[in-house]
């Protein structure tokens, strides 16, 4: 392991530009443990194939097959190899595989883990979970049914996940009397589809999982087929990861200070490192040399490397640097990108669509960043490969090209250079909602000096505006304002409610309810709203504002200050408002305890041409909020500072 010249020199005078070529010789094909995913349309025979492989390679524990056979007999069912896989009761009941399952098996030549990915559309996330960790894939196609929706969808995802070792097994050949033309037709159609995705399967093999034809032995039923058996192909595949060679990349997981040592702990994602190497941490660009590689139990002499890709490391540095989780260490000669905006292909597995303008949490390597979806360039139908444009969202199970912009620069690689650092996941709450592969860096013009509205827009991803809600007491202004605020905050829009009650107890507490005082109150509210909007805040003003003239002055003043303004009439009949009476104000007014109460002894002048009118006595809060969100977003227009169109 130890490099003689490195051990002899206390500190190398010259930093090697590239890792030594002898490190991490790529593992030859056909050796090493292979992770295998089996995909394909539901009922095309995945569980049967796996069950048969386990049985034929004697990987089933004694008695298990017999027990299942007995159970089948007891229930009057035919024994199926699939039952070996479907260990959970309810799966047997439904005859489908519920979740990703990993089953080890071995042949004389090598060991395997089969990752069974389910075919049901709603379980796509499990298929991705399984396939993302696989070295190779078996794609099953039913000879009778041919290519189906999930066949195509799975092909597409395999290509996006970067899986390149694929064998196609055309199953259930027994049901088509092992006719070569059926096999050839599927080979031609699927081959053409995969070619469009840039995927070339290693082989197409005719099999019958049920009868074990073409799996371990050459089938006498298909004398016209001269290629290898399925097992021969599986045994010949390359155990892929970890990627060998390549530039040094270490994802920093943590920095430990349990004792006097300050230890940088992380994963070598590619390349290799040795004591004495000069490294740089991105983002940030701080540099130091590797002082030691820490291990437990401690070895004598201590290790000096090289440590290659796929290994966990614990390093100390010669300088006291502020290093933190998320940074990526590299050699100076070949560094990752450091940027804020990029384009990516993403797949979406969350029920709630990914929307243009939305603020999302993104995880790449050990970095976590807030990112704005600047725009959805186009969606790709995973089944037909047709391209859709003019949309602003990515729905569940869709694949799309999007443009993202993170708040602070992150470090990453592009174009498959270091695959693990060129892909990311998008979070929704605590769950992974989608994944993506970075295609290109979007260059950005340097920002001007000072906090102009434009740079505020760049930071926030939207501009400030005023949504002015007017209506009677009890019409639903506060309820809608709060619901709107929640929705906007939820999609990363900075907003604030300007509520009449709050104003009255603070900024305007010296004012009464005479028409003059009401006007002054609204003047103050308007100035405050404009100030906030100029700072980039979406202001939701929830104010009775009964007089047309006052509302007109507010709109005019906003226009003067170049702040987008919309008047929204929150309309409910007086009788309804009075019946709701959430704060017992009507009751008190009727009892004469509140003078000049709007609607009782002071007039309300409804807007003549509001930008939006909502009837809170006729529609649900959810529907109304949806309309308010649309209106607000049309005013605050999340802009794409990198150019191109962000559409909401």
């Amino acid at each position, binding site marked *: 392991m130890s490099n003689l010249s490195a051990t002899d020199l206390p500190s190398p005078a010259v930093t090697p530009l590239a890792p030594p070529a002898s490190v991490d010789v790529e593992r030859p094909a056909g050796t090493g443990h292979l992770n295998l995913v089996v995909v394909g349309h539901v009922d095309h025979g995945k569980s049967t194939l796996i069950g048969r492989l386990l049985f034929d390679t004697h990987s089933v524990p*004694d008695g298990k097959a017999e027990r299942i056979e007995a159970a089948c007999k007891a229930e009057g069912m035919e024994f199926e190899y699939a039952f070996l896989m479907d260990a*959970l009761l309810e799966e047997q009941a439904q005859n489908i595989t519920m979740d990703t399952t*990993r089953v080890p098996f071995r042949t004389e030549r090598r060991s395997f883990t089969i990752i069974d990915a389910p075919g049901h559309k709603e379980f796509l996330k499990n298929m991705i979970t399984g396939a993302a960790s696989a070295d190779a894939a078996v794609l099953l196609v039913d000879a009778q049914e041919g290519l189906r929706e999930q066949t195509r969808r799975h092909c597409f995802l395999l290509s996006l996940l970067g899986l390149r070792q694929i064998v196609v097994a055309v199953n259930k050949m027994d049901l088509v009397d092992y006719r070569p033309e059926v096999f050839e037709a599927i080979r031609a159609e699927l081959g053409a589809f995969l070619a469009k995705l840039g995927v070339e399967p290693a082989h197409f093999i005719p099999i019958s999982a049920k009868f074990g034809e073409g799996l371990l032995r050459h089938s006498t039923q298909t004398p016209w087929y001269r290629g290898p058996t399925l097992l021969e192909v599986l045994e010949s595949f390359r155990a892929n990861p970890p990627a060998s060679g390549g530039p040094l990349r270490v994802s920093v997981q943590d920095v430990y200070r*349990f004792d006097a040592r300050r230890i940088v702990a992380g994963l070598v994602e590619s390349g290799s490192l040795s004591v004495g190497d000069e490294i740089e941490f991105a983002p940030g660009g701080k540099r130091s040399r590797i002082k030691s590689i820490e291990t437990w139990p401690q070895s004598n002499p201590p290790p000096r490397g090289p440590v290659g890709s796929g290994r966990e490391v*614990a390093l100390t540095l010669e300088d006291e640097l502020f290093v933190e989780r998320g940074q990526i260490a590299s050699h100076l000669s070949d560094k990752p990108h450091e940027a804020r905006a990029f384009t990516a292909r993403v797949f979406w597995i969350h029920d709630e669509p990914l929307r243009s303008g939305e603020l999302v949490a993104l995880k790449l390597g050990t970095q976590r960043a807030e990112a704005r979806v600047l725009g959805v360039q186009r969606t790709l139908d995973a089944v037909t490969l047709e391209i859709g444009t003019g949309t602003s969202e990515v729905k569940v199970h869709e694949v799309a090209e999007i443009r993202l912009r993170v708040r602070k620069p992150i470090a990453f690689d592009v174009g498959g250079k270091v695959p693990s650092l060129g*892909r990311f996941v998008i979070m929704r709450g605590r769950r992974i909602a989608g994944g993506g592969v970075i295609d290109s860096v979007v260059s950005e013009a340097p920002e001007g000096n000072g906090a102009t509205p434009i740079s505020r827009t760049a930071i926030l991803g939207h501009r400030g505006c005023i949504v002015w809600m007017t209506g009677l007491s009890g019409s639903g202004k506060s309820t809608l304002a709060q619901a709107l605020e929640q929705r906007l905050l939820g999609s990363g829009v900075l907003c604030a409610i300007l509520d009449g009650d709050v104003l009255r107890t603070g900024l305007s507490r010296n004012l009464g309810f005479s028409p003059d005082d009401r006007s002054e109150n609204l003047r103050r509210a308007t100035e405050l709203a404009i100030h906030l909007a100029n700072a980039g805040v979406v202001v939701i003003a929830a104010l009775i504002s009964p007089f047309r003239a006052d509302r007109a002055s507010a709109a005019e003043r906003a226009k003067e200050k170049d702040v987008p303004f919309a008047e929204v009439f929150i309309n409910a009949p007086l009788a309804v408002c009075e019946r709701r009476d959430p704060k017992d104000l009507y009751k008190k007014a009727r009892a004469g305890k509140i003078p000049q109460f709007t609607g009782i002894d002071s007039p309300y002048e409804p807007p003549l041409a509001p930008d939006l009118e909502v009837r809170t006595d006729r529609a649900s809060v959810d529907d109304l909020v949806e309309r308010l969100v649309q209106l607000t977003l049309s005013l605050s227009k999340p802009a794409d500072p990198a150019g191109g169109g962000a559409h909401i």
Partner: protein
Amino acid sequence: MNHLDELESQSIYLMREAYHGFEKPAMLWSMGKDSNVLLWLAKKAFCGHIPFPIVHIDTTYEFPEMLEFRVWARDHYGFDLIVWTNEEARARGIGYETTDPVTVTHELKTVALQQCLSAHKFDALITGIRRDEDSTRAKERYFSPRNAEFEWDYKDQPPEFWNHFTTEAGPGEHVRVQPLLDWTEIDIWRYLDREKVPLPGMYFSRNGMRYRSLGCMPISKPVESNAATIDDIIEELKVTKVSERAGRAQDHHERNAMQKLRAKGFM
């Protein structure tokens, strides 16, 4: 990098992610072989330091030899040991002498763990389960959330790929972190051998019998074996087709016992 190196690095990665991601993680330890690999990996992950408490759920039916090992290992490795027993259930008379093994396991292991978790407010539990142990475990994730009732929603598990996991728990929830998920029984033995990890002696043949899996005294049965060294055990495992937990009575007491136990929060 060989297969054991890959497994070791992956486990260390997962453990470091757990330690970073959660406020109050803890590690479960049964003194069994998998548990001891877990402990060894923790020492490696944190360069000789174990930065979270080690929890042993003591059913009061532990083998005396295992209890001796518990004290020895704590002093040898130097960690914060928490021993927890469901005293309330024992006081009610729950025990193998009076109750069926599934109930006993539930009360003295699962409920005890629940009590310990809520007393210490742990939000993550690092456990040594492996996918090849039992078919229900084959469906596990590396980071597997459990709700406040300890239930495992195995039908709707969060997606997990590209080294990204569920590293946050909601209020009252906790996440099971399972760094040994991809290891097989043979991997464990090969690693124990390679690293010279200290083990309780009961795994090795005495008078033609040895324990392959260790649990509570009344329900752990030795298997016939002359395997007295790790090499012998590995050779034995290469040819055996008897499942690992065959000697564990609670798994076989009734149909689907394991699935029921797991859905309720058993390891």
